[in-house]
């Protein structure tokens, strides 16, 4: 659908004015309907809470209270406004109703996004259209964007704005759609630019349908991109541009790396990106720019910016030569008798075993060292039948041997559990409990 339809019509059937000055929960199930609502409400509502459809009910209650929501937009019966205590409920539809006069859109509307990547109640991050569109430079051509994300999370919203502001088009993702069908749909629409997390891209690479598409530009963001996924994408799409963007919901888009290597060049720090100031302090990456959120919503919420306006991303980096590498989340560090372990480092070593598809390393409480390292491992092929027990035991020994070879003793998992799959969020990220 073309958004120019909104110049003469409304998805709210003449009730757009009712939203003046309100804090609106934007909760249609359908992404396109949500997109229309966001465009129409900007400048009219005082606050938009952008709500993906996978938020559990008790989180919703907390979000509604913190954001002082007094209106809800939806396209069906859920979520239930009465259950949430929201007085005003207006339906929104992609069938635009003709309208000649529109209320003045003069407010600086606060766009509230939810953080993703942990299993706790999401934090509410306050942006506006200025900070959200700051990273976007109008380009030439009319790219056809596709994304694996939901556009109601920061990564997907960036792609949405790129298409809307940059004069291209966007093929939306569809929740629960199998990868092969999604790729077929993207191919049918002539996708040229495609964005996803490394986890999304691994699913594409490991399925059979990677060659269904021929993108001009492959983009990764949302999780740290390791060398393995970059190399595999380069091999799968040799003629495409390959870029990974560092961005968080709080800090916005920090920088983009297009040399095909993991990490980022050391000269980004101090020189920055032009628009973004980049620092490393106490080993963690800090960003300052017009793209960052202004803060968290809610009394008692932690301060987002330090006294110099920098956001601490919580991503730990290490300099080796002329490059910085990501070594893990500050809040994921496992403390084994005073010695620090980054789960990501151990996962990278476990994943070197040819039979391993993926791993998730966690802390287990230890009465002796405080915590100890344990790992859940997914095998490419699970042994079955009579030999399953001994084969799995042999795998476990081999994995431990690789860890002993490449890691200090306190980083080696004390126990390995084989699991059928690793938990992944709807946002396409490996879920660590946080």
């Amino acid at each position: 659908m073309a958004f120019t339809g909104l110049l003469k019509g409304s998805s709210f059937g003449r009730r757009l004015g009712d939203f003046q000055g309100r804090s609106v929960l934007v909760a249609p199930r359908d992404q396109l309907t949500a997109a229309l609502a966001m465009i129409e409400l900007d400048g009219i509502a005082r606050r938009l809470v952008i709500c993906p459809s996978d938020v559990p009910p008790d989180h919703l209650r907390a979000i509604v209270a913190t954001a002082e929501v007094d209106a809800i937009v939806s396209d069906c019966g859920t979520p239930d406004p009465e259950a949430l205590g929201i007085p005003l409920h207006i339906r929104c539809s992609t069938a635009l109703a003709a309208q000649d006069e529109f209320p003045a859109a003069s407010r600086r509307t606060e766009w509230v996004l939810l953080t993703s990547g942990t299993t706790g109640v999401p934090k509410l991050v306050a942006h506006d259209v200025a900070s959200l569109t700051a990273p976007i430079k109008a380009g030439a051509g009319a790219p056809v964007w596709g994304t694996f994300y939901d556009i109601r999370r920061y990564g997907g919203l960036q792609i949405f704005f790129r298409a809307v502001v940059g004069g291209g088009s966007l093929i939306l993702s569809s929740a629960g759609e199998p990868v092969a069908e999604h790729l077929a749909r993207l191919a049918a629409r002539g996708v040229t630019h495609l964005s996803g997390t490394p986890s999304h891209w691994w699913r594409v690479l490991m399925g059979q349908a990677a060659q269904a598409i021929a993108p001009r530009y492959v983009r990764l963001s949302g999780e740290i991109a390791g060398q393995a996924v970059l190399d595999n994408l380069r091999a799968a799409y040799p003629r495409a541009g390959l870029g990974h963007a560092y961005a968080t919901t709080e800090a916005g888009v920090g920088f983009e790396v297009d040399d095909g290597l993991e990490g980022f060049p050391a000269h980004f720090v101090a020189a920055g990106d032009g628009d973004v100031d980049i620092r490393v302090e106490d080993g963690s990456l800090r960003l300052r720019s017009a793209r960052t959120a202004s803060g968290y919503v809610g009394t008692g919420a932690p301060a987002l910016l330090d006294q110099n306006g920098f956001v601490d991303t919580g991503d730990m980096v290490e300099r080796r030569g002329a490059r910085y590498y990501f070594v893990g989340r500050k809040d994921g560090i496992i403390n084994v008798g005073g010695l620090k372990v980054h789960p990501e480092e151990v996962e990278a070593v476990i994943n070197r075993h040819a039979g391993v598809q993926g791993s998730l390393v966690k802390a287990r409480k230890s009465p002796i060292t405080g915590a100890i390292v344990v790992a859940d491992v997914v095998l490419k092929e699970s042994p079955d039948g009579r030999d399953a027990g001994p084969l799995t035991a042999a795998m476990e020994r081999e994995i431990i041997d690789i860890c002993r070879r490449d890691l200090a003793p306190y980083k080696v998992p004390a126990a390995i559990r084989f699991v059928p799959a690793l938990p992944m969020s709807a946002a396409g990220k490996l879920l660590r409990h946080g």
Partner: protein
Amino acid sequence: MSIQLTVFSEIEKIAAQHHKKLAPLSGDTVLMDSGLDSLCFAVLVARLEDQLGVDPFSTSEEVSFPVTLGDFVRVYENAAK
């Protein structure tokens, strides 16, 4: 396998993996002199929890860390009851 055998067997595996020289194992072996360090003990307790289904050091606040290997095995035998 008896609890004692399980414990002894895990200790031997861990010592081998961590390249530790083990003292001869008996009920009277003093744990601090066994050749295992605190990391080895942390791994041992985790492995025994997976094998025996119990970590007596986390579930009971009364348990002080045992002195000998015999005391250690008895802690697990008591927890299994």
